C-alpha cells in the first residue's frame, strides 16, 4: 500500500516516462549529463582555440624570424622596408605602464584594504565596497578618454614638456582602474586572518596600526602578494587606455614621460589598418599576442600558487 503510493509519486515526478518507465528516463538522464559535459568542455575548446591560433600563426612567424632576433633586437619596425622584429620595444612599453600603474595601485590598494579590514566599521565597509567596485565597472574606453583629455592636460600643467601621448598618464589611470582588484583580494586575505591573532596583539598593548602592520599583514602576506600579482596581470593586458593615451610608436625606452606602444597597443594599431591574412605583418600580432599571453599566464600561475599557500596556513 505504502509502496504503491511511493511508486505513483515517482511516476508523477518522472512525468513523460509513461511508455518505458525504466529505460527512457535513464537515457534522458545520460543525454542531459553528456550535454552538460559538452558545455563544460566548450571552455577547454576555447583555450585550445586560443593556444592553437596563436601557436599556429606564431610558428609561421618564427619560421621567418629567428627567435633570437625576436628577443634581442632593440627595434620593432615590422612593416617597413627594412623590418626589425625586436619585441623588447613593445615589452618595455608594457612594463613601464605596468610599473606606473602598480606604483598607484599597490600603495593605495593596500592602504584601502587595511583600512577596510582593520579600521572601518561594518556599515561603512558594506557601503564603500560596491562604490569601489564601480571603479572596475567603468568601461576601459572611458578611462582612455579620461587619461587623454583630463589626466594628460592636468599633468602638462606641472610638466610643460610632457608630450600629449605619454605612458605616465596611461599608467596612472590603469593604476586607478586596478585599485579595486588589489584592495578587494588583499582585504579578503586579511579578513581570513583569525581574530585570535589580533586579540593576542591587542592584549599585548599593540595599537591597531601595529596589529595591522606587524601581525595581520605578515600573516596574510601570500594572499596579498596574490592580489598584487593579479593586479600586474590586469595591467599588462590592459588595452584601450594605452591605445588612446600612450601613443603608438614602438620605442625601447624606460622613461614614462615618453610616448611608447605597448604590446596590446601594437595589436590594436595593426588591427585598425587590417593587414592581409597570411602576411608576415599579420603574423606579428599573433607573435605579440602569444608573448602577452605567456606573460599574463606566468603572473596568473604565480598568483594561484601564492593564494593556495595562504589558504593552507589556516
Amino acid at each position, binding site marked *: 500500500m505504502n509502496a504503491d503510493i511511493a511508486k505513483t509519486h515517482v511516476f508523477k515526478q518522472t512525468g513523460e516516462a509513461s511508455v518505458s518507465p525504466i529505460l527512457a528516463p535513464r537515457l534522458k538522464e545520460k543525454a542531459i549529463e553528456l550535454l552538460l559535459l559538452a558545455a563544460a568542455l566548450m571552455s577547454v575548446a576555447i583555450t585550445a582555440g586560443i593556444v592553437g591560433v596563436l601557436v599556429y600563426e606564431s610558428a609561421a612567424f618564427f619560421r621567418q624570424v629567428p627567435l633570437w632576433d625576436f628577443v634581442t633586437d632593440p*627595434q620593432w*619596425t615590422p*612593416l*617597413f*622596408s*627594412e*623590418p*626589425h622584429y625586436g619585441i623588447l620595444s613593445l615589452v618595455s612599453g608594457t612594463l613601464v605602464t605596468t610599473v606606473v600603474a602598480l606604483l598607484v595601485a599597490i600603495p593605495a590598494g593596500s592602504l584601502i584594504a587595511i583600512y577596510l579590514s582593520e579600521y572601518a566599521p561594518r556599515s561603512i565597509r558594506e557601503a564603500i565596497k560596491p562604490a569601489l567596485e564601480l571603479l572596475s565597472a567603468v568601461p576601459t574606453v572611458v578611462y582612455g578618454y579620461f587619461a587623454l583629455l583630463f589626466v*594628460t592636460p592636468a599633468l602638462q600643467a606641472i610638466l610643460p614638456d610632457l*608630450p*600629449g*601621448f605619454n605612458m605616465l598618464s596611461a599608467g596612472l589611470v590603469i593604476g586607478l582602474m586596478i585599485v579595486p582588484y588589489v584592495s578587494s583580494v588583499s582585504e579578503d586575505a586579511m579578513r581570513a586572518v583569525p581574530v585570535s591573532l589580533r586579540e593576542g596583539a591587542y592584549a599585548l598593548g599593540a595599537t591597531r596600526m601595529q596589529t595591522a602592520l606587524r601581525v595581520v599583514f605578515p600573516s596574510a602576506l601570500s594572499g596579498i602578494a596574490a592580489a598584487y600579482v593579479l593586479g600586474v596581470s590586469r595591467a599588462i593586458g590592459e588595452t584601450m587606455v594605452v591605445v588612446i593615451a600612450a*601613443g*603608438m*610608436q614602438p*620605442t625601447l625606452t624606460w622613461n614614462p614621460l615618453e*610616448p611608447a606602444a605597448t604590446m596590446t597597443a601594437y595589436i590594436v*594599431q595593426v588591427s*585598425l*589598418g*587590417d*593587414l*592581409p591574412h597570411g602576411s608576415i605583418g599579420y603574423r606579428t600580432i599573433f607573435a605579440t599576442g602569444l608573448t602577452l599571453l605567456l606573460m599574463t599566464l606566468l603572473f596568473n600561475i604565480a598568483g594561484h600558487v601564492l593564494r593556495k599557500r595562504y589558504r593552507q596556513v589556516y
Partner: protein
Amino acid sequence: MLRPRVTVTAALTILLAVFGWSLGLSRSQPAPLIKIDGSSTVFPITEAMAEEFQKEQRGRVRITVGISGTGGGFKKFCRGETDIQDASRPISPSEMEACRTGGVQYFELPIAFDALTIAVSPQATWIDSLSLSELKLMWEPSAQGRVVRWSQVRPAWPDMPLKLFGAGSDSGTFDYFTEAVVGKAKASRGDYTASEDDNTLVQGISNDKHTIGYIPYAYFEPNRKRLKAVAIDAGKGPVLPSRGTVENGTYQPLSRPLFVYVNAKSSSRAEVKRFVEFYLTQASTLVPQVKYVPLPKEAYDLALTHVKDGKIGTVFQGASVIGITIQDVLRREATQ
C-alpha cells in the same frame, strides 16, 4: 519565483529557434550593400559621399567605408571583396597583377587633388620652411636612430629631440611621400609613430612641440588652430600648401591626385552605378567642403563618360605620378 519548467522550456525554445533558423536561413531581399575600403586620405571624401547618398536613398542602400590604407584596401579589392577602393596613389604594377589574377576589372576615377602637408605644432616657432633635401635628411632609411635632434637637420635649430609622425606603411600617402622625398617608394626610416589613421597623427603632432609629420591637407585644414604648416622649398623658394598653390602647380612635389577605383562587375549593379554617378556629380561641391582641391568639372564629366562607355583599366600603368599637376591628369584622361 519563476516556474522552472516554464523557464527551461522557454530557454530551450529560444535556443532551438535561433539555431534552427540560422541553419535554414532565408536570406531574401537584402538591402543592397556597397563595400568601400582603402585610403584614410580619401576617406573624408567618400565618407561625405556615403553620408549624403544614404540620406538621399533613405536607407534603401547601405554603404560601409573602411580605412585599411591604400595598399591594404587594394588587396581586398583585387580579391573582389570590396566594390569600391579609395586610393591616394594610382594602382601599382603588382596590384594590377593581383587584380588580373583575381579576375577583377576596374574603372579608375581621379576625384581630387591633395596637398600633402608637413605639419608641426604651433609652438615649434623656429621652423617655417624646409628644403626638400632637409626633408630627405629627416626621413631616409639611413636617418634611423641617427638623426634624432632638430639641430642635426639645420644647425640653427634648437638642440631638442626630433620626433616624427607619418603614415603607416600600408598607406598610399606613405608610398607617395617616400617616393617624392626619398626617391624610392617605401624607403623610409622606421623609428617614427606610424598610423593609418591620420586623426592619430594630428593629435600626436599638435600636442608635442618636438614633433614634425606629414598629413593630407584635409586633416590639416580643419585643425589650423592646433597645427602649423611648413612651407616646402623644392628649389624655387618656399611654398605653403593651399588650394591656390595646388591649382597653379607650384606646390610640388607634394601635391598629388586622389582616386577611387570601381570594380567593373559591381558597377553593373544598379546601386553601385547610382552611387558612382552621385559621386562624380557631387564631387565639385563635396570635395572642397572636406578641404581637398576639386578637379575641373570637365574632369568629372569625362570620368562619367568613361564609366558609361566601359573604359576599364588605369591610365598610369604603374608609372610614377610625382610632380603631376591637375592639367596633366586632365590631359591623360582625355587621351585615354
